[in-house]
């Protein structure tokens, strides 16, 4: 495993960073207040090839290596976690289709997802099923050459504008994954507002009432919807969230570095107060540690190592909890300024909390990580 970035990766990071500084970071607080990112931004991400950048070249994608992919995610999240979440959910669906989709599905959907012409969203969570994915109540039944879906999904990130949903449902009690296009008859999308964090992520509720999709839209096989299809999507999502959390941590550090240098109390800069320095030191070290875990997870994913899921889970657990701590300390360093909209750290704190809930909560990682670890010894 190489710890240093290649020249190409450094160059890519500079490109990501410049774009985020110009096109995303200056507007993120406004998008947060408006609870929506502009569709024009989606177009610019599309032009750059950053939607579906994980799609393999044989399906028209860039097939970014996992480190470059991580750098993209970190830099986007450093500017705006809602924009990061667009990449996360779109790429989760692309990854699951690439991993377990049929040849026909891969040919039909991946090239358009790689071009960003077709936005994907994951429809797993329900009002009564969050961490307990096997507890989903949405059903699908075969009827001739179609599947008929009934049920409801909640917290579907970018559901308001997605074109293609990867929906998880029970078929005679067995979990299955199905691709549902937005125009499918029987699907109703209702916007969700008033979220605490990643507020501009255009969340939606999905209602399926006698919703009919072609039989060929089943991804994988009935019975493998959660264990394999959702697992693939969630592993991709955890990797994205890990790097996104590093981005939040780095943004906290950036904000605190300049604030602590400029703000004076008791006649000296905040940075000269030892207790503030202690908070900064924790933040610096933890951001770096989280980034190292992400790099290792990326390396294992690039080499298709069986240990990649465990390492990705460890990175997600550490990075997401790190982001919350960093953002909490960032608000503390900013004092009352950290509690108002004039500074971004309050947004970072709200966004960081989301990272501990999505793609497997902190508690799910705590339950699962030891099981991986026990295999090794």
């Amino acid at each position, binding site marked *: 495993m190489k710890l240093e970035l290649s020249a190409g990766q450094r160059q890519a990071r500079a490109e990501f960073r410049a774009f985020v500084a110009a096109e995303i970071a200056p507007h993120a607080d406004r998008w947060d207040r408006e609870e929506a990112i502009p569709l024009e931004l989606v177009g610019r991400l599309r032009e750059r090839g950053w939607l579906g950048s994980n799609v393999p070249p044989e399906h028209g994608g860039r097939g970014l290596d996992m480190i470059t992919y991580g750098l993209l995610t970190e830099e986007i999240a450093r500017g705006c976690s809602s924009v990061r979440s667009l990449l996360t959910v779109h790429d989760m669906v692309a990854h699951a289709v690439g991993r*377990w989709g049929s040849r026909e599905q891969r040919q039909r959907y991946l090239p358009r997802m790689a071009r960003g012409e077709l936005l994907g969203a994951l429809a797993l969570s329900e009002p009564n099923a969050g961490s307990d994915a096997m507890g989903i109540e949405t059903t699908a039944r075969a009827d001739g050459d179609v599947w008929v879906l009934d049920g409801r999904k909640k917290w579907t990130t970018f559901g308001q504008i997605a074109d293609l949903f990867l929906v998880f449902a029970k078929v005679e009690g067995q979990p299955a994954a199905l691709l549902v296009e937005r125009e499918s008859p029987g699907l109703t999308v209702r916007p969700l507002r008033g979220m605490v964090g990643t507020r501009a992520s255009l969340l939606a509720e999905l209602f399926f009432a006698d919703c009919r999709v072609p039989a060929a839209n089943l991804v994988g*096989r009935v*019975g493998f919807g*959660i*264990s*394999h299809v959702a697992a693939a999507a969630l*592993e991709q999502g955890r990797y994205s969230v890990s790097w996104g959390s590093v981005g939040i941590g780095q943004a906290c550090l950036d904000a605190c570095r300049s604030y602590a240098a400029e703000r004076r109390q008791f006649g000296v800069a905040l940075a000269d107060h030892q207790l503030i320095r202690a908070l900064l030191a924790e933040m610096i070290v933890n951001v770096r540690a989280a980034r190292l875990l992400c790099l290792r997870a990326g390396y294992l994913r690039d080499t298709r190592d*069986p240990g990649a899921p465990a390492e990705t889970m460890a990175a997600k657990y550490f990075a997401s909890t790190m982001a919350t701590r960093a953002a909490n300390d960032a608000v503390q360093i900013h004092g009352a300024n950290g509690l108002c909209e004039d500074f971004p750290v309050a947004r970072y704190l709200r966004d960081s909390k989301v990272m501990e809930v999505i793609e497997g909560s902190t508690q799910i990682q705590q339950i699962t990580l030891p099981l991986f670890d026990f295999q*090794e010894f």
Partner: protein
Amino acid sequence: MDQTQLAIKEFLSRFFKSHDLQPDEDIFALGFVNSLLAIQLVAFVEKTFGIRIQDEDLDLDNFRSIDAISNLIARKTTAEATPA
């Protein structure tokens, strides 16, 4: 057991620590299979034997025992080596 079977047994032994897994033994019946094993087993087979498990391979019978996994690998290796 041949080399393929031995490699599979070594991998699965991480999950069945105190059990001497036999080639034809049903790993699902032993009750130790969970989603972690499912994810890692696919990755292990793909990386170790250089094949790609596809959607049509998602059948529990393909992963039920060392013999079943070994047979799947043999079929996939033959199929992927045969020009289309």
